[in-house]
């Protein structure tokens, strides 16, 4: 099976910042991402859960990008610009991707 080196970037960020992040990613040339709902979490700023919430003030989403290794730095720069002053976590994993033409 033909696979390709890639990076899996997982950005957990406040729901309020989602559009700002994806706009920044698109500007940085990221061609695709997937957004997972997050149910609850805990960190230095305390616990939160979406259960029963109406306001978007507390709550996060997880943005996942599979990208070519050479585009990593551009993506991280764009992401950090948005995330830096906000709470959130960014992790990067080496992975293999199928169908290189898709990303």
């Amino acid at each position: 099976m033909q696979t390709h080196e890639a990076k899996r970037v997982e950005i957990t960020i406040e729901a309020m910042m989602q559009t700002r992040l994806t706009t920044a990613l698109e500007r940085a040339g990221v061609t695709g991402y997937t957004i997972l709902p997050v149910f609850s979490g805990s960190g230095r700023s305390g616990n939160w859960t979406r259960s029963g919430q109406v306001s978007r003030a507390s709550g996060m989403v997880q943005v996942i990008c599979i990208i070519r290794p050479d585009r990593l730095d551009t993506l991280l720069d764009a992401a950090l610009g948005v995330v830096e002053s906000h709470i959130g976590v960014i992790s990067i994993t080496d992975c293999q991707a199928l169908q290189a033409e898709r990303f």
Partner: protein
Amino acid sequence: MDQILSLAAENLLSPIILSFALGLFASLSRSELSIPEAIAKGMSIYLLFAIGFKGGVSVASHGVDGTLVLSLLVGVILSAGLPLIGFALLRVMTDLDPLNAAAVAAHYGSISIVTFVAGTSVLQSAGVDYEGYMVAVAAAMEAPAILAALWLVARSGGAGKMDAELWREILLNGSIVLLVGSFAIGWITGEKGLAEIDAFIVAPFKGVLCLFLLDMGLVAGRGLRGGAGLIRPGLVAFGVLMPLIGAAAGLSAGVLLGLSAGGTALFMVLGASASYIAVPAAMRVALPKANPSIYLTMSLGVTFPFNLTLGIPLYVAAARAFTGG
């Protein structure tokens, strides 16, 4: 006085308040009772649509004059002005830094639509009428407080992040659009439109409000469990004093504008209530360094219950006394 007390007692023992208390009890005792996010959002959409629509229909029936425009204007001024008072008080009464003080103050300039709804429901039980356009005033009061807070931060040497995107988010936030939109629909379609859908938006309204307040009790209790440590006596005192100041401002506004007893009471409720949806969300974007536990606990854990239980009956009684209504 007797009247206030009996209204307060009746209010305290209404299904609405008791539902809130049940939610509070459940989360403080760490029961796993919870209402799904989608259901909570669904109920809030229902309440906004219904209250907006009914306001619009009432305007269609009773007509409007210049008071509508004046009321909107006064609402905007109140929303922008109250944070200044709140900020000054917080700097004196508490040890919050300017950033957090401004963030908390913004919540008290803006409004809580569910407190407003609870107010209308008390008025209705008491048989007191109010100007239908007060829901438009509520919508107008959501945003100005945010700008006032950002100005306060800038003045204190800090810097909020205010971009075009945030402007759009604030002015077109979901509850404003839904409230103003359904107000417009109610106005356009009038009594005839209402007749088509009143079995949906009038009859079951109070029951939905009960379940929504159950949910708010759950969320408030959770917040109190997490944020109680941050809420010192000074903050609690502010959380009770500030709504009284807001209500006093609302009372003056209502009397000056010549509103009915009901309309004046609602102006007081708007002045007294603190935002817990729109403003916290805007603060996360504009003032990310401000601590959300503080402003959310203040708004939802202290001031909301105060208004719901004691505040509203007090405001209604005062409005009646001052307007002779």
